[in-house]
């Protein structure tokens, strides 16, 4: 158990460093959110209407950025092979890495989102749902992205294809997550429940799929 915890701490430390992913993801999130009004115009009513959807899309894109770092460093210096042989199962290791990734990418996005929602003049009653939906949904983003990272671990510049693989799979997350916020006034609870169901499934299944993909990549 302590080995897993040590792994989480190590990955978190790596991500929080200057070259790590946390600031990058947060900055990207903010940038995308700031660009949309520049594209669609400063009409506050329009922005208020689309706020939930835009923030969700931005969160989805920002999460993609830090995914290939999940395994990249360990793969390149061979420590991934060592990890695969350790007494702790690869599935547990993947789960630990997922936790670390969410802590350093998902959590910052959740904290940053309300500030960005201000830029969009989002309705006040939607703030709670925004946080809730991101809280439920970002683990799913991490989980699915994790599978993609495992699949592309052996590719040198796998970031682009990782995005292509992961984005279609994450469609349900964005549909349910954004719908929860966009319909916050008239319930949107179904959306949250559906999001929670998907998220639960993804988080549980992801370590197995990821470990399988990593093993196959290391195997040949």
């Amino acid at each position, binding site marked *: 158990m302590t080995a897993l915890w040590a792994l989480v701490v190590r990955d978190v430390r790596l991500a929080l460093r200057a070259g790590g992913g946390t600031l990058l993801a947060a900055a990207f999130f903010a940038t995308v959110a700031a660009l949309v009004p520049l594209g669609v115009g400063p009409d506050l009513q329009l922005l208020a209407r689309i706020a939930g959807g835009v923030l969700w899309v931005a969160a989805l894109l920002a999460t993609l950025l830090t995914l290939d770092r999940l395994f990249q460093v360990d793969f390149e210096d061979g420590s991934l092979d060592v990890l695969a042989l350790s007494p702790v199962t690869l599935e547990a290791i993947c789960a630990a890495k997922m936790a670390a990734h969410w802590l350093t990418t998902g959590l910052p996005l959740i904290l940053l989102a309300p500030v960005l929602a201000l830029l969009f003049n989002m309705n006040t009653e939607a703030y709670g749902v925004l946080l809730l939906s991101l809280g439920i949904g970002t683990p799913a983003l991490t989980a699915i992205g994790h*599978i993609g990272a495992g*699949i*592309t671990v*052996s*590719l040198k510049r*796998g970031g682009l*294809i990782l995005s*292509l*693989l992961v*984005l*279609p*799979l994450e*469609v*349900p997350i964005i*549909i*349910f997550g954004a*719908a929860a916020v966009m*319909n916050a006034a008239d319930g949107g609870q179904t959306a949250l429940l*559906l999001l929670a169901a*998907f998220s639960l499934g993804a988080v549980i*299944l992801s370590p197995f*799929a990821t470990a*399988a*993909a990593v093993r*196959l*990549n290391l*195997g*040949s």
Partner: protein
Amino acid sequence: MKNDRSRPAPSLANPKRFLEIVHVILPWVGTLAGLLLLGGFYWALFEVPPDYQQGESVRIMFVHVPAAWMSLFVYGLIAVSSFVGLVFAHPLADVAAKTAAPLGAVFTALALVTGSLWGKPMWGAYWVWDARLTSELILLLIYFGYIALWYAIEDPARAGRVAAVFALVGAVDLPIIHFSVNWWHSLHQPASVLRMGAPTMSAAYLWPLGIMALGYTVFFIWLWLLRIRTEVRKRRLRSILLQGSTG
């Protein structure tokens, strides 16, 4: 059952038999496909009566629905092949999945284009984010990702297995994606919007639709067998050349 992953794919003992069978049945499959398609196209264009609501534009259904059906059917085959390849390590499973993918992608693209052309007379716009078309679009993206994986990973054996994992994850996610898109669509559209592809299915429509669907399927199988044969030959080629250079 041999389960060696450390050696390159076991060579051509099994596939030789397979190639012999393919050589024999290929002309028959091709002829059957040709007849079905010719008959189906003629029937759909010239014999089918126009629909009460949609008029002549219902004819597009006969090229749209079979293409959409194929896009899903082929992905199912890829998923099954991937599963067989991962679990049983059958030497042809990888090849089967790899060769089917571009064909499935073409059918998906065809379904999208014909669906869009059908949508314009029906709803007045080329793309209205209809639930089924949107799902097809996402399916096309998944096809692209799958094919890109095959290109990106150099070792064919590893590419086959990793792509298989992606195909299976996609297979699990696709029903969920479809459900979520349906749900999303119903959220934003009033229920009275005319649903695509819903003329009352009288026998006059069912039969030509069946012929077309069958024709597309047999045509795909013909192409698929050909592509598998080509791929097996290419691998044999590569192994000969490799042996020659080291030998």
